[in-house]
């Protein structure tokens, strides 16, 4: 069947074809570029395994740092001898906190945030309490895990 009139002129057809090609090319290139420039984020660990001997013997009312992935973890021994582990990162702006044994509080120097012994945000800008971990001991290993995560260690 031959049409007497075309809905598009040749000019429109060529422009659309060329413009569409250009748009597709640009979109593809930009997609590839962004895909490359955006990193694969990775995630925080579910648990870390530490040496028991390095941590259990720290003095009371003090902390010892450990690496929680790329972040700071703190192993904490209270005045009464009970031990806990927590993420040593302020819930406000992610600065590393420090333990102040004189007042028995955690302190963030960046914006002057304070947390009490149980990690509750009590003063300054922090919006949430600190994150505590589960601590279990297996042989000579100390396993620090996110709350509620089941730890499955590979059989040695």
């Amino acid at each position, binding site marked *: 069947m031959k049409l007497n009139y075309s809905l598009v002129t040749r000019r429109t057809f060529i422009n659309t074809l060329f413009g569409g090609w250009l748009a597709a090319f640009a979109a593809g290139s930009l997609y590839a570029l962004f895909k490359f420039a955006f990193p694969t984020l990775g995630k925080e660990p579910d648990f870390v395994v530490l040496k028991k001997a390095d941590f259990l013997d720290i003095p009371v009312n003090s902390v010892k740092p450990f690496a929680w992935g*790329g972040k700071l973890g703190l192993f904490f021994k209270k005045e009464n001898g009970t031990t806990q582990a927590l993420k040593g990162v302020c819930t406000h702006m992610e600065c590393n906190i420090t333990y102040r044994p004189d007042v028995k509080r955690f302190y963030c120097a960046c914006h002057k945030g304070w947390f009490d012994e149980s990690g509750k945000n009590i003063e300054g800008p922090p919006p949430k309490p600190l994150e505590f971990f589960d601590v279990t001991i297996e042989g000579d290993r100390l396993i620090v895990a996110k709350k509620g995560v089941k730890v499955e260690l590979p059989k040695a």
Partner: protein
Amino acid sequence: MSCRRLKDWFDERYDLEGLAGIARGKHVPSHRHDIWYFAGGLTLFLFCIQFITGMALAFYYVPHPEHAHKSIIEIVTKLNMGWLFRSIHHWGAQLAIVVLFIHLFSTLLLKAYRKPRELLWVTGFVMLAVSIFFGLSGYFLLWDERAFAAVRVATGGAGNLPVVGGLIKGFLRGGIDVTGETLTRFYAFHVAVLPIVTLALAGAHVVLVQVHGMSVPLSQQHRQGRPEPFFPDMLCKDMIIWLIFLGIVVTLAVLLPPEIGKKADPLAPAPENIKPEWYFLFLFETLKLFPGEILGLNGETIAILVISAAILFFFLIPFVDRRSAAQQKSPVFTWIGILYVVYFAVMTFIGFVS
């Protein structure tokens, strides 16, 4: 080849006489507030210092978490004149940001942004944002404790933006945490991405100034003196100011070399009494005003939203200020401008003393 012949060689190929004519025709208005015109040229000059010293420093700096801190210490202790270039680069950056803010606020208060110069405002504003990112990224390259905490806070703050926050944070950090990945990224921004963006924007800004000519404040339009020729009168005056500022930069660089803190340690607590660079102090103090929680919402997110809205409004002033665009007096925007300037000054001051 003699000078004469060299000139003829160019003359035969290019219309030098025409160019000279354009140069002779360029005049700058003169009136009571014309002193503020110098801030723009001065910024350009300070940026030139930054480009030259920065290229020199890039010969020796190593953007790797193991070596970055040490390489800067080597630049200032072992290399010939290394201390001078690093110090000039630091103080040149500080003064460039001071002058940029002066340029911005004088443009704001004299309403030089009004029609038809909106795009000058836009390019200038983006350049200020780029410069601040220049400052943050450059200062992170030190890889010391203070820089590490500052970049954590700055990128974490961006992460508080709703919807796009996480994406921006991941893009800037190169991962979920501030690590060596962040260092290479910031290095790329500092020495490749931002310089090219700055060159393009500065080029557009200068071309636009030539297209529009200098803005004359409404109040001065009927009280102008005789316009001054740019060549050589204004250029000479510009250069006098540049020389004075070169003197200031070098004096500061020699007498007050910037400190280098302890090497960054991702597991060390944030250093005591940590403060951001002075041009972040007004943001830092504003963040402190917001409580952790407002009506059950995260106070941080609200703070970042309020600040973003205030900055966005500032950016859009040329398009909102209809009276100025119609060449009428616009006292409301004068007061808004004063409000911004006073807020910035007061919060920066509080940040300094607190």
